[in-house]
């Protein structure tokens, strides 16, 4: 039995009086409720065919990209060399994981090199494939050069990695934002910043869990958690039908869980973390989990959104 709040019954009565009942699938024969014109309520756009690899790639690629940026910022400001080295390693490992994840998701993995046949700036997927190629090469080059004690080459590679890392951390928001899926396209402007903040949070979290206690890391984690809290509030206050999958049903629940672990919880823990190491580590674990769940939630929300023709049939 579904439990609905008592207020919903009032809402139904008010809507029925206006002749607009916003319940899917409820249209008693001869009832006065006007039906939104559609072809039997069937979907208009196709749901994404992407499986588990893609949200995991968004997570790993984002953390790696942001980590390469932290590495260069830490190096330029003279932070400890162990922090710079670990940040570079996280970037390289994340990039190394990203490639196989993307290839696994292809329908024809053996043809992955076709991604590099052309460069199309108007295709975020093409920009992403090229960015990952550059980022993977540069971030691997940075750690290998360091192992071989070629400092100059290592620094140059780390710089290229950071430049491409900025794209890695944010482009996935453009990738899903600039599509025909209503819930994604509605948030085309928010997604790159949202995913960028999520990437920064997971990179700082990984470095914190690795044992780095720089105040700067906690500050960055705090800033990212604050922004994710803001994004959560923004999503909650959307009342358009495009954003319904972010607030209703299983995808709404996943979005909220992801939002809680990305925003308010690490924000509070990071504030405590100014004094407590244990709180910093807890905040990091929460931010990592939140970042992963958030990416899963957005992909699942896209699938739910594709099933609903109403946003696309608005006149």
């Amino acid at each position, binding site marked *: 039995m579904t439990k609905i709040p008592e207020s919903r019954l009032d809402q139904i009565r008010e809507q029925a009086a206006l002749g607009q009942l916003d319940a899917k699938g409820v249209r008693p024969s001869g009832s006065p409720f006007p039906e939104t014109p559609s072809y039997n309520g069937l979907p208009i756009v196709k749901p*994404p065919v992407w499986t588990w690899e893609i949200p995991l790639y968004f997570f790993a690629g984002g953390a790696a990209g942001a980590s390469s940026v932290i590495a260069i910022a830490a190096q330029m*400001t003279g932070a400890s060399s162990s922090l710079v080295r670990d940040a570079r390693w996280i970037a390289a490992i994340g990039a190394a994981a990203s490639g196989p994840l993307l290839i696994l998701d292809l*329908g024809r993995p053996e043809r992955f090199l076709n991604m590099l046949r052309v460069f199309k700036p108007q295709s975020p997927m093409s920009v992403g494939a090229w960015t990952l190629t550059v980022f993977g090469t540069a971030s691997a080059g940075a750690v290998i050069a360091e192992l071989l004690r070629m400092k100059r080459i290592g620094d140059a590679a780390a710089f290229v990695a950071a430049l491409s890392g900025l794209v890695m951390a944010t482009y996935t928001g453009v990738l899903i934002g600039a599509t025909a899926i209503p819930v994604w396209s509605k948030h085309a402007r928010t997604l790159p910043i949202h995913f960028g903040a999520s990437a920064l949070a997971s990179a700082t979290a990984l470095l914190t869990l690795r044992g780095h206690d720089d105040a*700067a890391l*906690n500050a960055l984690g705090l800033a990212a958690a604050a922004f994710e809290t803001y994004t959560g509030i923004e999503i909650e206050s959307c009342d358009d039908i495009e954003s319904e999958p972010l607030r209703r049903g299983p995808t709404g629940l996943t979005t909220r869980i992801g939002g809680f672990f990305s925003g308010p919880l690490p924000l509070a823990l990071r504030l405590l973390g*100014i004094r407590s190491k244990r709180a910093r580590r807890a905040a990091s674990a929460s931010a990592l989990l939140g970042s992963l769940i958030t990416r899963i939630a957005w992909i699942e929300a896209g699938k739910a959104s594709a099933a609903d023709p109403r946003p696309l049939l608005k006149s």
Partner: protein
Amino acid sequence: MAVTGFLTDSTLCIGCKACEVACKEWNDVPDDGFVWSGLSYDNTLALGHSTYRHVKFVEREPKAGCGGNAKEQMTWEFSSDVCKHCENAGCLEACPTGSIVRTEFGGVFVQPDICNGCGYCVVSCPFGVVDRRPDDGRAFKCTFCYDRQKAGAEPACAKACPTGSILFGRLDDLEIAADRRIAQLHASGMDDATIWNPKETSVGGTHAFFIVRGDPRNYNLPPKPEVPTTLLHQSWSAAAVAAGAMVGLSLIAFALGKRSAGVPPAGSAASRRRGAK
């Protein structure tokens, strides 16, 4: 080479599905399941990776004085849907391999020897036409019978259509024919007949367009389709803002962290407080 098009005139469609059959046989398209949908005579339901023509069966309550149906009966209209071959095609713009191209006939064609099945065209089509075939791994959609057009023949569906509901020809000729047909329909009392061709949207018109009766939304033809590339500017701008913020915040955080760490040892309570600002 002349730009060709499809004009699908739903007022002439009898719902025989000859177009679906002809398309499947000519293009050797596999079956996509045998399901009873319970929705009129439509057990195909949508275009997809293994359906390039799809006949919709639109049941509606009648509008008095239209089409000669008695008031107590349902109206029953049929319409053969197909890839729209957009002027600005979302799938073509999105394809990262260059597999999706525009042919010399103006159609949008997926080259099967290049597609690697990334799935990005699937979410970039505003009409839900192209899809990835699960057992094959590549994306498929209407080819506009590129092979037949190359040989000077008309597409299989148009040839098989027994009523002339599916017209194939030069796009500019078809647009004139559509206007003429609408005038004829309106003169004979079917004043709810309209042309669906989203020319005023970012899609910029389609090479396959339709004559339908009543609200095109009843045929799942969206009133305001947009090609996703229109979102690129705002989305990349947001990405640039995010990237700038990430660089700025990281530099500030580490610069402040270092300054505070100058006298007391790094990681002390004082440095943490100042770095967190």
